[in-house]
């Protein structure tokens, strides 16, 4: 339990990676790292399928990333109708790829592929929490 707090709409509540939400509440966006082989995972994984190990630690995603691609969504799936339009973004933080939304105040005209961004937690209504991208 605990993971139902993540995101605008939650689809699942149980995961062994639910600590992600605790870190968001402390103001940090974290990935996991396999303590056997050193691979870093985002989205965070509780397990490393290369080492057959569940020995992972949490690692903060800091600094600047670069936008790989983005799209402004005008028509939303069920449950997100009130949110549109929003900008979905994929950004690369030194090889760690992060998928999420751009901050609501940023207009599409000001978003470019290659642009520098940072990622930060965002508190939503009804005790929910997520993260978003901001220009760096």
């Amino acid at each position, binding site marked *: 339990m605990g993971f139902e707090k993540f995101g605008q709409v939650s689809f699942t509540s149980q995961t062994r990676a639910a600590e992600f939400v605790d870190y968001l509440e402390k103001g940090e966006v974290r990935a996991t790292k396999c303590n056997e082989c050193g691979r870093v995972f985002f*989205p965070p994984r509780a397990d490393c399928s290369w080492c057959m190990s569940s020995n992972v630690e949490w690692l903060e995603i800091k600094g600047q990333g670069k936008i790989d691609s*983005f*799209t*402004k969504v005008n028509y939303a799936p069920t449950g997100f109708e009130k949110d549109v339009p929003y900008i*979905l973004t994929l950004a690369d933080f030194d090889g760690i790829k992060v*998928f999420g*939304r751009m901050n609501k105040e940023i207009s599409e005209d000001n978003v470019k592929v290659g642009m520098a961004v940072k990622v930060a937690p965002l508190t939503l209504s009804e005790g929910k929490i997520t993260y978003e991208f901001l220009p760096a």
Partner: protein
Amino acid sequence: MPKDVAIIGVGQSHFVRGYPGSIRELAFDAYSEAMKDAGLGPDDVNASIICTAPEYDKQRSPSGLIAEYLGLNPQPTFAIETVCSASSTGLKVAYSMIKSGLHDIVVVLGFQKMSEITSADSQERMGRGADIMWESPFGTMMPAYYAMHARAHFNKYGSTPEDLALIRVKAAKYGTLNERAVYRKGVEFDQVMSSDIIASPLKMFDCCANADGSSCMVLASADKAKEISKKPVWVLGVGAASAAMTMTGRDALSGLSAAREAAKAAYEMAGVTPQDIDVAEVHDCFTIAELMAYENLGFAEPGKGNELIRNGETYIGGKIPVNVDGGLLSKGHPIGATGGSQIRTIVLQLRDEAGDIQVPGAEIGLVHNIGGVGIYGNVTILGR
């Protein structure tokens, strides 16, 4: 070239907005056409494979019901799911069952009645087509994902929204000739360019339509095919591959790695190259998907796909005619039926029975069918 397994019968229902019957009747429409085409009855069939995206079905375990309705008891039956490429996967499994010597004749039936559930329920399922833990909570949907691929392609290679519009205009031109297509109107370039933006840079006319429909293929061993069929079409190569479901797990967005891998495997098995292909069906669920397919299949170098459409090379008469039945963009995309419909088009081409859309002298054809946003790649090469 291996000539071990052949397609000896094909069928397809009309693809329509709301099919006025049940899923068993929808399945029958394609099945009866394919079985008449093969000249067979239910007792001649050794097994059936039912291809569907079951989240659209109200019926639990539809393969049981459909096999009963089609007279295919007591032969074995089961369902296959790779979302939009289910019936190409079904063909690959049928090929394996026949090649192994287990069965001589296998029916592959794909269907989807997307109107079985409400539009809101359908939109809800669209949202769950991504990783539900880490991506769906942001409000993702298919057009948005392909839009991100489009943006990355534009940025890396200088392709443009105009290139995508040209692809839609081509699809619509051939859609007008296909009486089984859901969208039969022509579309002008300016109409595409001025249509509503769904997820930038993709516009309404860059997206295919939902539809209800079914498709059916009858596959046979070499001995049976030669005995039964005047015009067997041989399965020369079957390639399949997978790629990350998440956007974060993909190496690059400017192409689909599962399509590249599947193509490589299919070309190798068939012993042919992209230059040998006379006619192709590619998975144009969105216009950008066709542009990426040109490159992932080797019809153009990476980044040069737009030259094919700008120069009209993917029309009949061009270097490599693509989607001359209107593609998913005009035919519509009834998930589980789509691959079988693409394969039917190529089979008719290779039998010289494609009518108004016949590519003269076509001997080798290719089908590219993708499940999800590049999750499941399937490439099938057929020859006469």
